[in-house]
């Protein structure tokens, strides 16, 4: 069975659920911008959109202090090893959001003759949530973070609204 890096060997039932609840509501993203999407990531953390409402606004410059990596932008072949190194430096449990089409699949820069980019962050590191857009609006990133919360805890803020809509 394939296991995600950093997955614990022993599971502790209720305690783990409580821990996951805490983790999901205080995700610390890394200040890690690669290109255009980084600006929308900054905008999501700034005055109007205010990621802090969801506990995810504490951007940390060091990977050692983070548990969420937002891959925001095109990964060039020169940058690829650095992305992997940064992911490996993060302490487990850790999650990854691929923000923007470049991080999902290479976006507009991927075509047969392209020599310079890695088409997709999931070729390098495991990705949990994909946020499409070029660049995604800050609302998109916020929804991505809420989806990640749902993935971590199994119950999310979004699910309530989705059930109500159905």
């Amino acid at each position, binding site marked *: 069975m394939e296991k995600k890096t950093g997955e614990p060997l022993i599971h502790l039932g209720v305690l783990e659920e409580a821990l996951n609840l805490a983790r999901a509501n205080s995700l610390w993203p890394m*200040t*890690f*911008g*690669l*290109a*255009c999407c*980084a*600006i*929308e990531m*900054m*905008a999501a953390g*700034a*005055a*109007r959109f205010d990621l802090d409402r969801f506990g995810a606004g504490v951007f940390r*410059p060091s*990977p050692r202090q983070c548990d969420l990596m937002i891959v925001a*932008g*095109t990964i*060039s072949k*020169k*940058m690829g090893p*650095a992305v992997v190194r*940064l992911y490996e430096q993060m302490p487990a449990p850790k999650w990854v959001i691929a923000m923007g089409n470049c991080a999902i699949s290479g976006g*507009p*820069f991927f*075509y047969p*003759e*392209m*020599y*310079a*980019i890695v088409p997709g962050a999931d070729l390098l590191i495991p990705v949990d949530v994909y946020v499409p857009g*070029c*660049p995604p*609006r800050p609302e998109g990133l916020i929804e991505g973070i809420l989806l990640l919360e749902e993935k971590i805890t199994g119950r999310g803020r979004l699910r309530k609204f989705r059930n109500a809509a159905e």
Partner: protein
Amino acid sequence: MLERGLEEKFYVLNLGPQHPSTHGVLRVELQMEGEFIVKADPDIGYGHRGHEHMAENRSYLQFLPNLGRVDYLHALAYNQCYCMAVEKLLELKVPERAEFIRVITCELNRIASHLLWIGAYLLDLGAFTPFLYCFDDRENILDLLDRVTGSRLTYCYYRFGGVPRDVDDDFLAGCKAFARRLRSRYRDYENLVNKNVIFLERTKGIGIISQEQCVKYGLTGPMVRGSGIPYDLRKCEPYSAYPLFDFDIPVGSTGDIYDRYMVRYREMEQSLRIIEQAVDKIPAGPIMAEKVPKRIKPAPGEVYTAVEAARGEFGIYLVSQGDTTPYRLKLRVPSFGNLSILPEIAVDTLVADLVAILGSIDVVVPEIDR
């Protein structure tokens, strides 16, 4: 690359590629003696996306969205430069109303770029509050531009021969309202930043660039104006509708970081003046040139056009061989020239000052790497 193993007493420090103050993925290899920098060597290429190569593979119109992603902070100036180049090849005359719309949107985008720079730069220096203030103001511009262009950041609004969508009265009124709002915020910026002792201590007299160095390294934009040379393409080589407006070029005197900050800060006011005049004087009429060919296939020839972007002179050298794709497209980007001075001015400074200097250059890394 630095020579390794020669000087044991020097300590090599890597700044980047992931570093909060490199604004993207720039790596600077520093050779240090204690806290002081002996040699700084920028290593670029971490954001290389092959824009120029893409231009040779795509039709003229298909390449247009790329320009919004070369420099995503002042995307509209880049759009404008490319449109001007193709219009020059096709010998199209852009209607006056379209030129006015271009000037208004381009200047709004310039203010957004400067606001983001001020916010992000002060974040580098350790001040968090101005970042929130600047982004608050910037969101107002993005709302205005969102109305007409349909996107928040990587605009692709201009077309060859004009603009595809007209602006309405609400947009023009919104521009005036924004000008009033930003002016009312100057007092906050003055109190928060311009009179802040920590900010003054960290910027005055640091990273001085002389006028000779500006010319030697081909610096443009606020870098060269901060040193006292009033070089602005909007005045020196007027394009679009800029000759019709009355505005000044702010210049600094000593060429330190503080002067470059003040140049950008005062440029926002000048952009507001241009916007207000353009909104008052905007003529009625068509927004697209007549007889724009459906299939863009310019006659063989080569052109160079340049615009004043927020970071300096942005130029496009375009060669056509009478095909539907450009034969060669060279982007002359301001950040590349501006960054080239870093190894010279970084010598004998502290690491903390290097962060301040690097931020004051206002580099956009995907633009350098293209």
